[in-house]
């Protein structure tokens, strides 16, 4: 029997409709489609896809359960390794993870592993997730700083191992970027909340309004806990550092998205946090964050939503699906453009951006061809809102407040592969260690650190 060369389509909201609402774009597979898609899996003996999975899910295992219609078993297989499958099933860049390794890729599209993971996670959530039986308490206490995917994964795994875990979160809610960064139409907040509830049911206690380094110091945590895991993310926004960046109308992607997602400014004035949206919006950058900004702007009524990027589409770091959705929704890409300055009116409101056209030159260190300016190619366009989405750096709050902690050149906490830092008992993982990366890498780091911490606290007298 020959294998179908393309993935089964996942139905989604019509682009014309969805740019007027914040509802999720894809609807997910039906049971029938999920089973058909699962049957495309060749069940390779050497399981190449698993090499691409930082949280070590038995991928052929759960897919064969789906193929035979045993969805509950499939959920068990996934949950054995992944505490947040409804999240990773939506935002993971599968193309460069598991699906990138799929054997069928040689002849066509890989198995829709991400779509299947999502299907199972949603199936289980609706039915009510099974909570694994509590193991006997180890009498060891671990503090986890930051309730993003790294912290939540680490906390969940440690709780499953029998440790008492408390998560300390600076904001008033859990999830980190999942809550404040990634928009509702891509990752509904009630789904994040449901996954967090699962972590809590494993016995994890989450405390909010706790800025570690300010409200409580890491040193103080050590007095009460046997080990500390830091998963404070890459919250610090990067700037273009060009004139006019402080004008009214220029936002960091983080401010824009936080107002809208965490503070629900799109439901202003029911919610108190405002957002001021212009009609002509330009987003700078071409990663997931940039796509989220440009697509959110449309939903808030922007008439034009541009993406300005220095390189070409081939170099865009965003997930393929995000670029595809952005295009469908009418986001206009101005590629090979480099902003030079923002121009304001007399009152200081943004009215224009001046940029320069670029061309691709020699490859740089990353192997990508370096964009070089074309002399005399300066142009201006009228814009009233600018969203800067050119990356984030590690949050400096904890790194700065700790003596003896080895830091990398971007202010990241240096760890080994298992999450150990230069301070005994202190572990770290996720964006704070790697710089801005992905949800799944943060989860993988949290998972490996949990194993290291388990060994560390057990060895500790």
């Amino acid at each position, binding site marked *: 029997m020959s294998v179908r060369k393309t993935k089964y389509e996942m139905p989604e909201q019509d682009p014309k409709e969805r740019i007027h609402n914040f509802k999720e774009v894809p609807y997910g597979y039906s049971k029938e489609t999920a089973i058909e898609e699962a049957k495309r899996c060749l069940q390779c003996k050497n399981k190449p896809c698993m090499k691409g999975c930082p949280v070590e899910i038995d991928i052929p295992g759960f897919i064969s359960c789906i193929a035979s219609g045993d969805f509950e078993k499939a959920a068990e297989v996934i949950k054995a390794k992944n505490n947040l499958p409804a999240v990773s099933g939506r935002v993971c860049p599968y193309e460069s993870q598991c699906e990138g390794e799929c054997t069928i890729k040689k002849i066509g599209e890989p198995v829709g592993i991400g779509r299947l993971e999502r299907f199972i996670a949603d199936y289980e959530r609706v039915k009510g997730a099974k909570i694994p039986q509590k193991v006997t308490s180890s009498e060891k206490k671990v503090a986890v700083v930051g309730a993003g995917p790294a912290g939540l994964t680490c906390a969940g795994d440690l709780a499953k191992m029998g440790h008492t875990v408390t998560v300390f979160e600076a*904001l008033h809610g859990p999830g980190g970027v999942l809550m404040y960064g990634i928009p509702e139409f891509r990752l509904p907040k009630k789904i994040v909340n449901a996954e967090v509830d699962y972590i809590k049911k494993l016995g994890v206690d989450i405390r909010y309004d706790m*800025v570690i380094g300010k409200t409580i110091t890491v040193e103080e945590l050590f007095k009460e806990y046997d080990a500390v895991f830091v998963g404070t993310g890459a919250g610090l926004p990067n700037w273009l550092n060009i004139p006019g960046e*402080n004008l009214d109308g220029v936002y960091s992607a983080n*401010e824009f998205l936080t107002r809208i997602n965490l503070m629900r400014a799109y439901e202003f*004035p029911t919610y108190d946090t405002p957002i001021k949206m212009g009609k002509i919006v330009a987003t700078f950058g071409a990663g997931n964050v940039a796509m989220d900004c440009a697509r959110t702007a449309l939903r808030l009524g922007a008439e034009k939503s541009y993406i300005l990027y220095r390189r070409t589409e081939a170099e865009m770091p965003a997930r393929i699906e995000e670029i595809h959705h952005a295009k469908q929704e009418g986001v206009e890409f101005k590629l090979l453009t480099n902003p030079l300055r923002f121009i304001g009116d007399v009152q200081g409101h943004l009215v224009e951006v001046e940029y320069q056209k670029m061309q691709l030159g020699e490859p740089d260190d990353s192997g990508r061809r370096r964009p070089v300016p074309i002399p005399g190619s300066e142009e201006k366009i009228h814009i009233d809102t600018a969203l800067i989405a050119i990356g984030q750096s590690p949050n400096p709050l904890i790194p700065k407040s700790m003596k003896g902690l080895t830091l990398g050149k971007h202010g990241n906490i240096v760890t080994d592969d298992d999450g150990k830092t230069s301070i005994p008992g202190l572990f770290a993982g996720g964006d704070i260690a790697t710089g801005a990366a992905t949800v799944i890498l943060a989860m993988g780091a949290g998972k490996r650190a949990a194993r290291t911490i388990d060994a560390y606290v057990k060895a500790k007298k």
Partner: protein
Amino acid sequence: MYKIIEKKVLSENVKQMTIQAPLVAGKAQPGQFIILRIDEKGERIPLTIADFDRKSGTITIIFLEVGKTTQQLGTLNVGDVIENFVGPLGMPSEVKKYGTVVCIGGGVGIAPLYPVVKALREAGNYVISILGAKTQNLLILEKEIQLYSNEFYITTDDGSKGQKGFVSDVLKQVIDKKGTINMVMAIGPIIMMKVVSDVTRKYNIKTLVSLNPIMIDGTGMCGGCRVSVDGKTKFACVDGPEFDGLKVDYDNLMLRNRRFVHEEGAACKLVGVVQ
């Protein structure tokens, strides 16, 4: 949840509340601030810590009812709770022995000035305080600040109390009379801090100001609170709120603080608040 255990009306539209927040009180230092969110639908707003008591585990905040959130806060009473109250945030004031210092507070800016005055006096400084307000009724914490001041002046715009005029007028007189002033600390409306800095710049006196930009997280994540100091972008919530007054771009701060005036106006209309 954080309980309100005391509430006072200090002047028209200015209220004082003492909140039970032991962890915040345990760490609070003069110059730092908190961020609060009243309820699930609320916005996050920063308020400078006006006083703290480590023993009773309380933080005192003083606020002017200007927008939707502060108006709503003003309607809460003793026994009510605030959903989120996080801190202490920002860097503490640079409290040390400078010699002779002038502490200037304008309007509700007098509130955050109080713990700084107290700390500077306790650090052995000769403290000259100048408080300014539009009119007598809007003056707050006079007695408290006077208690910790070696010299004490009041100005009101309408002359209803103290000298008629602005704090900067008295500042000039004080500088001329004293000769050496080692440091000037100013907290108040942006325009006041700007004018004070214009005066101290002429005499080349070290000047510290405490800035109050719009904030969300208070952890350096959003960049909404950015201010331009000496041509560089700083985040007031982690690098500040205190900055070198001679180097702050006040005009940009004024502009950025008016970013949501229109929207804020709409929210106020809905709850029947007059701006």
